[in-house]
């Protein structure tokens, strides 16, 4: 309310909202509120982690196969980037508490650069998945017309392909014209034979290995076998579940990063204006909590998605 100053004539520090009595109360409210929000976030991601655990314990080999195909180097690099960004964020809070304007600004800018680096790496990884045809949503992978020279595609009788073809028929025809016309020559060493942009997975070596070693669980046998035979299509579907979980989890995490960067931009502007002082720094502190939370989520995502299952031989 604009008129609160008229109603209450006691002293109002800048940044104190009308519903609070003093800065301490406001600070405490913001802090509890942020923690409650983070609890909410934990439950949100918790649902996803549950789904991950259920399916990982159901199809460990498929998950290992999918996991092995992820690039650990990028993932590890990103982990370092995020941890460093948490440090710069913590420093930003520290300098805000001391009321040092320029130091804050620098730290916030550093945090933003590191956050952007993380997202950049993530998009490189996503692009690789797109090129490899392992985005689990049909139509979101690189499409190429079936070329006669490279007609070595090994899963022609895949019913999934047929279904997708009938679904996407008009779109894929259009798309194919453009892609095959422009890029056919340039794609010498990488031949993509995926006219519908569907999910492709041919590597069943891990499942074969497990079969030989006789350590497939009964749930896996149900999941991978057709009439007692290892079925590449069924194995592929389970790998697809892994990639789906991978994309949803990292995607939601990236969304949180983007929101975090938005927050940082706002903080940067405020800090530049010199809003935050030793008395009033709770926005920086709260944004810091949020940033650390997003960081911690990644600390869990990285081993679960990239590292678990890597001890199995094979893969890439």
């Amino acid at each position, binding site marked *: 309310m604009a008129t609160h100053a008229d109603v209450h004539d006691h002293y109002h520090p800048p940044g104190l909202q009308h519903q609070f009595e003093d800065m301490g109360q406001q600070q405490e409210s913001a802090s*509890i*509120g942020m923690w*409650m929000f983070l609890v*909410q976030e934990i439950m949100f991601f918790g649902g996803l982690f549950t789904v991950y655990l259920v399916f990982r314990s159901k199809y460990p080999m498929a998950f290992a196969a999918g996991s092995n195909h992820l690039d650990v180097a990028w993932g590890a690099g990103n982990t370092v980037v995020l941890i460093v960004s948490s440090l710069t964020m913590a420093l930003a809070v520290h300098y805000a508490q001391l009321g040092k304007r320029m130091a804050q600004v620098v730290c916030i800018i550093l945090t933003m650069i590191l956050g952007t680096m993380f997202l950049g790496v993530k998009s490189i990884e996503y692009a690789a998945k797109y090129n490899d045809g392992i985005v689990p949503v049909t139509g979101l992978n690189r499409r190429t017309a079936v070329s006669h020279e490279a007609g070595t595609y090994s899963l022609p009788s895949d019913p999934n392909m047929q279904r997708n073809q009938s679904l996407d028929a008009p779109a894929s025809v259009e798309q194919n014209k453009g892609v095959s016309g422009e890029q056919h020559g340039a794609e010498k060493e990488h031949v993509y034979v995926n006219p519908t942009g569907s999910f492709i997975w041919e590597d069943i070596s891990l499942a074969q290995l497990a079969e030989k070693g006789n350590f497939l669980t009964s749930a896996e046998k149900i999941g991978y076998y057709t009439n007692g035979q290892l079925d590449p299509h069924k194995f592929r579907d389970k790998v697809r*579940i892994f990639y*789906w979980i991978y994309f949803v989890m990292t995607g939601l995490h990236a969304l949180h990063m983007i929101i975090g960067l938005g927050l940082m931009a706002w903080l940067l502007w405020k800090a530049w204006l010199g809003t935050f002082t030793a008395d009033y720094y709770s926005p920086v502190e709260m944004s810091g909590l949020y940033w650390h939370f997003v960081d911690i989520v990644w600390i869990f995502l990285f081993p679960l998605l990239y590292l678990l299952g890597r001890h199995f031989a094979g893969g890439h």
Partner: protein
Amino acid sequence: MQNVDTINSGYIEKPTNYLTNGYTLKSWLLTKDHKRIAILYLIVISIFFLMGGLYAATIRLELLTPQSDMLETQTYNKVFTQHGILMIFFFLIPSIPAVLGNFFVPIMIGAKDLAFPRINLLSWYLYMIGGVLTLWALMQGGVDTGWTFYAPYSTTFSNSYVTAVGLGIFVNGFSSILTGLNLIVTTHTMRAPGMTWFRLPLFVWALYATSLVMILGTPVIAITILLLAVERLAQIGIFDPAIGGDPILFQHLFWFYSHPAVYIMVLPGMGVISELISNFSRKKIFGYEFIAFSSIAIAVFGFLVWGHHMFVSGQSIYAGLVFSFLTMVVAIPSAIKMFNWTATLYKGSILFDTPMLYALGFLGLFLIGGLTGLFLGSMGLDIHLTDTYFVVAHFHYVMVGGQVIAYLGGIHYWWSKMTGKMYSEFWGKISAMLVFVGFNLTFFPQFILGYQGMPRRYAAYPEEFQVLNIFSTAGASVLGVGLVMPVIYLTHSLIWGKDAPANPWLLPGLEWRIPSPPPTENFETTPIVTWEAYDFTEESGLDLESARNKNKVTV
């Protein structure tokens, strides 16, 4: 916003209150005043309630005859689904926290507003966006999965607007989370000096427990519905067994929220009832601490019993045993509340005004709802009863007999404070009794139908079930009249009702110590609380002695 005229002019006899503080649409739609936001909620929630009620009426009419003759089967399936979705997600869950909680929690603890007024407004907008999305989907063709959205029917087989409705519920869920967050923080940090935790009205305790459930549970349903939508759009196979998914996983995730959601609906109702029973007996509530902690216990144990919805779905027998045991345990706090409420009446001075009639109705109906919950929690019996009309009757006794009755009681109790007008006590009593009678006539026969074996969600049913269904439909029409009446006489009171005094019943709560309707910032000066909750003695500063004497003189 007060304009210069109102501040400077001397001829305004009434001080500005939150209703007269600006009349433009903008002053309402961009308000950060918790009271105005509560009124916005009240209006929209009432509309959703009436829509859900119309669906209910349609269901009861269709079930008048054994054949599906009034509606096509397909239409019937959509009607009961939409009844459930509107009532649960857009009425039962937000109603008491977002209307009564929003309005009265800050006042009852002596605060000027909620801790985060802007987030409060945001949550109303999220509720509106979710609601509009859902309504849009209903206009486009509706949804026919049942409110439970069980996979793989919802992910693969249903040809209806599952994704759009799911998105509506997803957005609405964040409205619920933000309301819960706001109420928790407000209760923690905004209490007036002297308002210790054990001086809080039990309504605040109940809403605190509710908010915990909202924050811990709602994100899980949000992510579940998100997964459902992605599964539906891209056919990944997380819930669809044809490519390795697990439909039972969906049920676990769904009930992990949706069972606690039952407590989101009924805990605030219990809070309202604690207020009513105590205040209308003019007496301290019996066992304050036990009622307060039983709310928290319900919120905590409520998270551990979801599996009792799945006794026949193929989960392991040992999981079933644990869930059944915990279900019995979670019944105890409710029983404690029930006994304490009854004991509160002992040696009271009981007023039978409309809100109290609702409160007594709640005690009767919630008792039956709770006891029949034990039937369903008992595994052997659940095999026979689950997915029959027994379940339908049980949860309507809890949801309507519990939550809706409590909500109506609360609306009547605080109406004078919220609007500054008195409603007709005569019509209030009539409608309270009609609701009670109509409700029992509607839903009691359904217990018998359920034990007979009539499955729920049937558009057509075997002929031998018709007699009881006719009773039920007849009761529904009485219930319908009882529920429409308040809309009429409450609206009537807004224009023609008498002006309400600040404290019509001479009650000790903080909300009764400020004018009706309250000023924008609630309290002129921050109150200092020196009395316990429901304290009718002189310590609370209430001068009942002189009121009695005055009354004797005038009589």
